């Protein structure tokens, strides 16, 4: 019985450690939560971070690995990143969004490594007093991320591989 209790206590300690564990590449303060993860993205964590009593709207975008490109079946996507710079560029996006879109909080989590179809590649959430700002801010954040953040994805097909957007 005592052993069981001890085991349970250990479990609780491990759980609380997990809760506060941040990946190696992260930038977190009260208003921004930016992470590059090699483990599964949890959309609820992203949304919970931005929730705020002053905000009536949370908008989130979730980017998912699609099963095909130009009707060609995709087997998996491999993501790689220049992590320290990617964090810096995502931080710039967060700062712009906080300053110019009346956003209260923003979270951006991006996955790296090999992803299967249906897995989440990116999750962004923003909170605002009003919904229109939240929609605009979330769209700005994902559009800018795709243009400036040094992350690359390679599509793996049955008969080959292609670095996405590499060629015109």
């Amino acid at each position, binding site marked *: 019985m005592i052993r069981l209790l001890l085991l349970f206590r250990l479990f609780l300690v491990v759980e609380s450690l997990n809760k506060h564990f941040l990946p190696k590449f992260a930038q977190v303060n009260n208003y921004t939560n930016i992470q590059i993860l090699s483990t599964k993205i949890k959309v609820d964590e992203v949304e919970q971070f931005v929730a705020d009593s002053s905000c009536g709207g949370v908008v989130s975008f979730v*980017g998912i690995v699609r099963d095909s490109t130009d009707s060609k079946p995709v087997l998996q996507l491999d*993501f*790689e*990143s*220049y992590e*320290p*710079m*990617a964090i*810096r560029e995502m931080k710039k996006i967060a700062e712009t969004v906080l300053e110019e879109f009346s956003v209260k909080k923003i979270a951006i989590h*991006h996955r790296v490594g090999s992803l299967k179809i249906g897995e989440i*590649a*990116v999750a962004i959430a923003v909170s605002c007093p009003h919904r229109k700002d939240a929609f605009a801010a979330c769209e700005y954040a*994902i559009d800018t*991320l*795709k*243009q*400036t*953040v*040094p*992350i*690359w*994805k*390679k599509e793996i097909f049955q008969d080959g591989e292609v*670095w*996405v*957007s*590499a*060629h*015109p």
Partner: protein
Amino acid sequence: MDVKVVAYGIAKDIINGRELTMLVDDNSSIGDLKLQLLTLYPAFIDLASLSFAVEEEYQDDDYLLKNDQTVVIIPPVSGG
């Protein structure tokens, strides 16, 4: 002088490795390094864009390089 060139994404495939050391003239700019890379690896010409970063920031072609500096090749990004 020497500069360390680090490559990601398709750039890694083009130079066939994560990094290489390049001998460039003193006072070379990123533009000079780019020309040298295009000559050595013509596959870079076919890319939709080719940017460079020093100290985790994008830098323009006229950015002057220092000896032993690390330059990161940023091919077209495709996150999200």
